[in-house]
């Protein structure tokens, strides 16, 4: 009896294996169009790109991907994971592209293909209102929060090494947790990209303040996809859609809606600063 079950299970497994292997050979854009949906992975704790606003997933990414979906003729299906699980999920084929977005870096470009940038990602400091920090260098020796497995963490670590006393860097699963911990008083500042902290400072006026100028090198945010050949048509199509939106002003309008300001972004980043 057990043996029969085992054979049945093995047959099922073989069927699924075959089915999904043959699916892999197809190009991802054609597959998404055939299914009518594009799967997009992201985390929902990265305001104003993705966040939960009273229970609803909203932000720049939701709006931008709605437009990309129109251009590509597909519906967008969101898969939300903790940030740590997002890039592994992309590699495991859980979704077709990552909205994140992620800072475009040299190391990541070796492994992933970035879309045309959607915003500036230069890192700056968000401090608790009233904390004795007037320039980025003042964070020396203080407890500063940052997201785990992020480019912002790498930049903060690098900056910390240039200071007379090192920064007490605390890593959080999501930037939201770091903001919450700053509100709770365990840390005095959070290092994150300018568009993010500008948004948070506006939302929590009187609670948090942005410390100018940014300390990081000038970087950009892009969406992340795979380098494999079967992903190329999809990535090309998303690039074309984004560049089109930069041209017709839709991008600027959305940036203004979510950041309260517009960023000049190049069509493509070939040589990232970090």
């Amino acid at each position, binding site marked *: 009896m057990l043996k029969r079950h085992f054979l049945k299970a093995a047959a099922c497994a073989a069927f699924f294996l075959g089915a999904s292997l043959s699916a892999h050979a197809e190009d991802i854009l054609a597959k998404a169009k055939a299914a009518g949906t594009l799967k997009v992975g992201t985390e929902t704790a990265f305001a104003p790109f993705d966040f939960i606003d009273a229970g609803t997933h909203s932000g720049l990414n939701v709006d931008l991907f709605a437009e990309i979906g129109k251009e590509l003729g597909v519906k967008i299906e969101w898969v939300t994971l903790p940030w*740590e699980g997002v890039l592994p999920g992309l590699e495991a084929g859980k979704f077709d592209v990552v909205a994140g977005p992620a800072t475009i870096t040299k190391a990541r470009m070796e492994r992933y293909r970035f879309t045309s940038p959607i915003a500036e990602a230069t890192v700056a400091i968000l401090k608790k209102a009233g904390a004795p920090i007037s320039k980025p260098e003042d964070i020396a020796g203080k407890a500063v929060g940052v997201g*785990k497995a992020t480019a912002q963490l790498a930049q903060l670590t690098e900056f910390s090494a240039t200071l007379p006393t090192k920064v007490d860097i605390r890593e959080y699963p999501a930037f939201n947790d770091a903001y919450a911990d700053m509100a*709770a008083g*365990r840390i005095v500042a959070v290092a994150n990209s300018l568009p993010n902290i500008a948004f948070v400072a506006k939302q929590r006026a009187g609670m948090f303040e942005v410390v100018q100028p940014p300390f990081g090198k000038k970087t950009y945010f892009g969406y992340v996809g795979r380098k494999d050949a079967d992903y190329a048509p999809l990535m090309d199509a998303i690039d074309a859609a984004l560049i089109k939106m930069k041209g017709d002003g839709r991008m600027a309008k959305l940036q203004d809606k979510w950041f309260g300001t517009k960023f000049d972004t190049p069509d493509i980043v070939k040589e990232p600063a970090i």
Partner: protein
Amino acid sequence: MMFDPNVILRHMPEIMSGTAVTLALWITGMLLGVILGFIIATLRRYGSPLLDVPLGLIVEVLRGTPFLIQIFLVYYGGPFIGISLDPIPCGLLGLSIYAAAYYSEIFRAGYQAVPHGHFEAAECLGLSRLQIIRRILLPEMALIVLPPSVNLAVILLKESAVLSIITVPELTTTVSAIGSQEYAFLEAIFLLALIYWFIVEAAARLGRAAEARLSTYRFAAP
């Protein structure tokens, strides 16, 4: 998937320190949990009934809610009522209290399981109250509470992985950080599974050995 053992070798010091933090939190949390749990069970049995009701309620709340929610409440809620703990003390406190709730139930069952006749027999023999506790109650209870205690210990070790969510630098935190840093996601998860599995098996074997040893006293001559 390519499994690159060099990734593991390169990060050996971090993996060791993560394992050490997990083991330290687990063992300390367990010890504090046993002590606190014993106190709760004893107060509920021998203390005033006025204590039994609130203690019972607290135990039920702790047993009826996920550990993760308790940890979130202490870690993110604590500062709003003036208790701002760093991740490690917060994790240790959370783990100990969670453990205490379950241990108190184990001890309660232990108290109930010692037959009344044994006390009467001891009293007839003229043993003092302290002697009865030391010679009759505790040894008999130990036999009863050991197997569920070992089970609980294993559960606590696994629950301690949850502490990674509040950034305690324990095993899960360190190994998954290495995974993302090196883009070796699967290797990291595999390694985690293996390390936990190894510790759990070792603990379970130790527990069984202790049970076997203790059970030889079951019918020992006085």
